[in-house]
């Protein structure tokens, strides 16, 4: 039996995983990263439009700060987020973006003087301040009050991944590429590492680590139409779920991005609309102002996606042989802007649609985009129920996105959570109380169990085809667990997914070879994915309200009285459904009590505690008027939740520190 020992095992080589490993390594702990693919090919790369951080450099971002970012994020989450975690996030995001600037990310910069931008379909001239010249620029994104999204043309995730990946190499962190974790090694209360399969030769190795961190990204490939990369199959989620000890939070919260290109589902960035692009229907009519007079195209993604589908249902879609779609019009932005700031969009349209977006309209329709749910963790990133297991990024639910995440908050979360959780992992490894004496028999037991499963699949004379099961699952998820959900559809989905799960135990391979066999990979993954799909569908069926991206046509209102709580799913070995429990969100501790989001549906069922908390909040606002920091401390203290070296205010042009700071 091959065993690799390390201090920290990071599963997943995207931004969150890399950043956690760097943090641990810089604190003196050895880290090994497992990655299905070379890290720079991770799906973090696909984040195009940008990263939210309240720097307030551009004139349209003036006045931005952590408080505004906090409110935007909580409203975006439809009050599903953990507000303390959101506070940790918004305070660290400016530090993260500035760290990345020092690491070499070529952030687009502010140029002083006049420039012409498109706002609400009109050309507007804005004037950037002299003192902002050369600082990081921000663009507009959906669901935000200020221009807050820092960007690198429209290759933000790419540039970030290059810089962070390069720093990981510079730090000498080994990445074991083409390696896939099959199971966590644990005893029900403590995680000791993972059983790992080499995808080149098929061999199993046990990785034993003091701390194990899941950073495997999302589970978009549960759906047929998704912007996600083909590796985003939720395997990290499934590792935690199959442990039986760790829980998944809010898996029914699935985001659909308004502008997947039609029909391939490839993403074109929200930056298209942030920079002034418009959504149009079959008549060339700009329809979003009809539905969302306040934020128009730039309401949150869940709202825009629903409005688009609703408009198509009204018969206003553009017919095509693949079905209906709508148009994204960025021609008004001009060729220079598109070829500089929306360059990837230009290339994607050119290669996949054969059109020139500087002249032609882009066919779009919402597509699955983001998994808000994930491995439930404490604000430290550690599972509350499986010691030594951490998670960060899209795979985690610590929980800053609630039921809908804002554009630009995801790629920001990867590095912010990587920084924060990475520090906590280092703390965890520093603590002598977390050393363990591991019986090798336990490791052997887990390796042998996984080997036996693989051997059984290879030897199976089963009649089921893994690809066909997967395709059917994706079809069900897209058709019945999509943007609009009903109890009846969800019941049918759950029932059929259960059948598929049963059938997946009878998979037979056409090419029964144990080595680098793509069919074998599909076979063992689809067994995991079906459990995850059931967790999503069953959670959606059970949650009889609409919140954020989870929209029930038969329960269209947000119901704080019944459902202001987080879904926690666990899976018992051999079960055919997850076990669901609910964790209430405490309104008494909310800095921003539930209310209207400022866009989308205006009606919701209030929680009985909301008015009381609102009165408390209002009183504190009066008491601390003029000192936003004191007010914030009184509303929701969070500073002690952050690692010591990440605390502290953030300097801005309009909030200078003075003193002997580094020349800006």
């Amino acid at each position, binding site marked *: 039996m091959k065993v690799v020992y390390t201090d920290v095992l990071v599963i997943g080589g995207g931004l969150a995983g890399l950043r956690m490993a760097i943090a641990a390594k810089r604190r003196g702990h050895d880290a090994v990263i497992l990655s299905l*693919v*070379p890290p*720079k*090919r*991770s799906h973090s*790369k*696909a984040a195009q439009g940008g990263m939210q951080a309240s720097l307030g450099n551009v004139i349209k971002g003036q006045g931005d700060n952590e408080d505004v970012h906090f409110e935007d994020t909580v409203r975006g989450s439809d009050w599903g987020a953990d507000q303390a975690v959101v506070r940790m996030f918004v305070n660290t995001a400016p*530090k*993260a*973006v500035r*760290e990345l*600037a*020092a*690491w*070499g990310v*070529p*952030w687009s910069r502010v140029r002083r003087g006049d420039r012409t931008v498109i706002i609400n379909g009109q050309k507007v001239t804005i004037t950037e301040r002299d003192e902002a010249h*050369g*600082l990081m620029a921000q663009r507009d994104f959906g669901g935000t009050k200020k221009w807050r999204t820092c960007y*690198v*043309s429209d*290759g933000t995730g790419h540039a970030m991944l*290059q810089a962070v990946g*390069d*720093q990981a*190499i510079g730090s000498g962190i080994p*990445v074991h*590429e083409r390696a896939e974790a099959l199971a966590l090694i644990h005893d029900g209360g403590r995680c000791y590492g993972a059983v790992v399969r080499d995808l*080149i030769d098929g061999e199993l190795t046990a990785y034993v680590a003091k701390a194990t961190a899941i950073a495997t990204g999302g589970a978009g490939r549960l759906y*047929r*139409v998704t912007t996600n990369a*083909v590796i985003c199959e939720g395997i990290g989620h499934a590792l935690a779920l199959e442990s039986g000890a760790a829980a998944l939070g809010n898996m029914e919260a699935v985001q659909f991005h308004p502008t997947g290109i039609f*029909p*391939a*589902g490839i*993403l074109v960035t929200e930056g298209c609309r942030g920079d002034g692009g418009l959504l149009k229907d079959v008549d060339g009519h700009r329809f979003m102002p009809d539905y969302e007079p306040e934020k128009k195209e730039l309401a949150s993604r869940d709202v825009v996606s*629903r409005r688009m*589908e609703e408009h198509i249902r009204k018969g206003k879609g553009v017919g095509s042989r*693949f079905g209906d*779609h709508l148009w994204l019009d960025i021609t008004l932005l001009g060729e220079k802007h598109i070829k500089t700031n929306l360059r990837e969009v230009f290339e994607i349209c050119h290669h*996949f649609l054969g059109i020139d977006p500087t002249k032609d309209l882009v066919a779009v329709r919402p*597509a699955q985009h983001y998994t808000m749910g994930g491995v439930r963790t404490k604000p430290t990133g550690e599972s509350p129920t499986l010691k030594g297991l951490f998670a960060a990024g899209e795979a985690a639910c610590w929980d800053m996105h609630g039921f809908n995440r804002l554009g630009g908050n995801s790629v920001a979360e990867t590095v912010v959570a990587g920084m924060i959780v990475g520090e906590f992992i280092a703390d965890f490894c520093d603590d002598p109380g977390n050393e363990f004496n591991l019986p090798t028999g336990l490791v052997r037991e887990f390796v042998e169990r996984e080997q036996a499963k693989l051997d059984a699949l290879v030897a199976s004379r089963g009649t089921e085809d893994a*690809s066909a099961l997967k395709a059917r699952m*994706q079809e069900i998820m*897209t*058709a019945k667990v*999509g*943007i609009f959900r009903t109890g009846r*559809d969800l019941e049918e989905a759950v029932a059929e997914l259960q059948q598929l799960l049963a059938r997946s135990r009878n998979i037979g391979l056409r090419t029964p070879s144990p080595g680098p*066999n*793509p069919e074998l990979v*599909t076979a063992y993954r689809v067994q995991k994915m079906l459990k995850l799909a059931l967790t999503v569908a069953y959670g959606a069926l059970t949650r009889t309200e609409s919140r954020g991206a989870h929209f029930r*046509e038969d329960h269209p209102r947000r119901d704080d009285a019944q459902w202001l709580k987080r879904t926690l799913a666990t899976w018992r070995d051999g079960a055919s459904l997850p076990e669901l429990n609910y964790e209430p969100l405490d309104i008494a501790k909310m800095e921003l009590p539930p209310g209207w989001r400022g866009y989308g*549906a205006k009606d919701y069922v209030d929680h009985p505690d909301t008015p009381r908390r609102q009165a408390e909040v209002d009183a504190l606002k009066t008491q601390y008027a003029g000192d936003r920091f004191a007010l914030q401390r009184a509303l929701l203290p969070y500073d002690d939740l952050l690692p010591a070296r*990440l605390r502290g*205010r953030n*300097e801005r042009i309009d909030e200078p520190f003075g003193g002997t*700071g*580094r020349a*800006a």
Partner: protein
Amino acid sequence: MSMFRPTATHKVIPLVPADGAQPGNGGRIRVHAMRYNPRDPGNAPRLQTYELEQAEGMTLFIALSEIREKQDPSLQFDFVCRAGICGSCAMVINGRPGLACRTLTKAVGPDITLLPLPGFELIGDLSVNTGKWMRAMSERLEAWVHMKEAELDLTRIEARMEPELAEQIYELDRCIECGCCVAGCGTVRMREAFVGAVGLNKIARFRLDPRDTRDDDDFYELVGDDDGVFGCMSLLGCHDVCPKQLPLATQIAFVRRKMAAVGFR
């Protein structure tokens, strides 16, 4: 009440089809793919032909996925983003290195020959280990920003940079490490130790970056020899096959001039 509660008379419209894969009347195409498992001693490289119906908007990603799902589940290849941004799927398409995911079958068919990218360790069939090569290249060229020692004060306003400089750096930072330039380079094919365009472009990129404290003497240590920039024979296969249209020709020339100047100091 919700303003947009859907009316009961509307049937649920299915969402968009998967990645455009719909049977179309685009005719038959034949994909001739290299099959070879280097770990199987009794096995010799051969071309295997798969015939399939061409669909509207079909890319090689869709075609190969369909072949694996319906005809041959053992065929090895790599895709990740399938949107032309991650660099996983580079292979030799009708003789030229390119990204399979964004190659439309109708542009290269009806007979399409696919070979694994040469110059890299072959994993099997069309799958090669570009990641291992790129990591070694990054370590050899120390391809990361070498910062000043003092720890950053992350609470402070960031250092300024001219907007034009940021754009110039991004222009070179767009490399996706797909390996096409290496496979397209006759020099590196002959001499495996040659650094290749991807590495020289990185030197150009870090040289441009004011956050990197290294100077030309430092870069000369990395590429100032015949395995480095002076080994380049200016065949420009790299430039002509780069799927991101990076300005490799001018950047390599630029690095060459700067490194040559070091030699005469």
